């Protein structure tokens, strides 16, 4: 299984990265939910979440993270990933 981790300054930025990476692919990374919001493909991608410090009292670092697991390598995600 291929694992990629994305990091960006906001959830929207993570979504934009996934949007760019899915261009031309048979199976998109993003889907529209019933309310019209954009969501990640939850069967392959962990919902974007806030990065926290490793302190005893964790605090947001100001960045967001997202993890993707794919069966096949993805060059676009590899170029974006940490």
């Amino acid at each position, binding site marked *: *299984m291929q694992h990629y981790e994305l990091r960006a300054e906001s959830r929207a930025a993570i979504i934009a990265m996934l949007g760019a990476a899915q261009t031309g692919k048979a199976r998109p990374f993003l889907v529209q*939910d019933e309310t019209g919001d954009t*969501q990640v493909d*939850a*069967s*392959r*991608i962990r919902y974007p979440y806030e990065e*926290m410090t490793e302190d005893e009292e964790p605090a947001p670092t100001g960045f967001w993270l997202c993890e993707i*697991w794919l069966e096949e390598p993805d060059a676009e995600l590899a170029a974006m990933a940490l």
Partner: protein
Amino acid sequence: MSHIQRSPAFPPGGYPSWPLSQPPCWRGFAGAPAPGLPAATAWWRPGDILAFDFANGRYMRDGETASLGAVLSASRTSPATWFTDAGILQPFDANVAAITDRGLYAGGQRVNKCRNFNANPTDLTGVSKAGDAAAMLTVVDDSAELAAAGLDGICTSGMAFKFDNSAGTSTSWLYIAGNSGNTNPHTMSVYMRSTGSARMVLSSSGGTGWMSSASYTRRSATVTPANSSQQIVIEVAAGKVVWFILNQLEEGSFASPPIVTDGGTGTTRLADAVTVPGFAALAASGSLQDGFAGKAILDVTRLTDPASRCIFDLGVATGDRVRLDILTDNRIELAIANGGSGPALQTAALAATGEVEIEWQVKSGASFIRIGGTTAAENSDSFTMPELADAHLGQSRSGASALNGPLGYLSLRRAV
């Protein structure tokens, strides 16, 4: 001389017609065969074009017995676990549907925030103790007890955590690394056995306690974290011992099947995406576009979820589909949308938990829902059926509204 050879197995004059009291089970009708007729080979109802008997591991497509792969496609690029009817926990590889004799578990995405190795531990990574200095925290072989609890399919090494406060004179605490990270409701769970009273809390946010437990039993509690740095704490009274495994801290209102952690910053059990391959062709050949009916048997032991739970979503887009859902107030809803709008039927709230049989018909002018054989909602609204291009089971087409519970049986057929 005749060139026509008569089959010796074929009775002269063909099979006899059947009395109404003895419909032919070889055509799918229930009951014993009439005299002279072959035994039943079909377990689905006459007219069904697709049937999933998940609980018994048998499937049908277009009137023929089919393999699982011919009727169902599963995507989930993470492993998963699910229980058998006997409570045995089974592992499932990535992209393998979690199906046991309890049925198909179509689960939503969950993250186990615990940072220890919660199965097959080899050391004390992510766990620590405080309190009475006499308390001992170790990893021990507890194979027999794990097997007795049906956990040996996951806990293959037989190792478990032991927190021994038998020599202590005051309470001791065991901390499992992994913070809540936010203040949304979380559920903590753990398999534990103990010689006396023990308690599991989410730091200062509350939890649950119990007396002795001779065998491994899953304990869980849902609490709202007081802050984002709350973690699982197991409290053991003086003189007592606890053994535990498969601890879990997850955001949500119930304990999902155990997620085996890897010692990292959280282990993700991805959502199941379960679809029917080639559904458009099947729907066309079965004329489902003119209206369809079906039956589902599922376990609704857990009710009043904070989100609706989808049994199926058939259609082509979020605004063009037919969905059957368990709503947050425990009503069953059959919602048809074409171009973003359409009628919806809703039953009264389900009164009882446990296994429920739901039947439905989606047909312009004659739609209904039956619960346990009794009509629970019906209407005569006219509508145009949305295009039936694909079928999602146990979740909506956007991946939301996961059923998070066992679907034992589901079938589809053309409406009459």
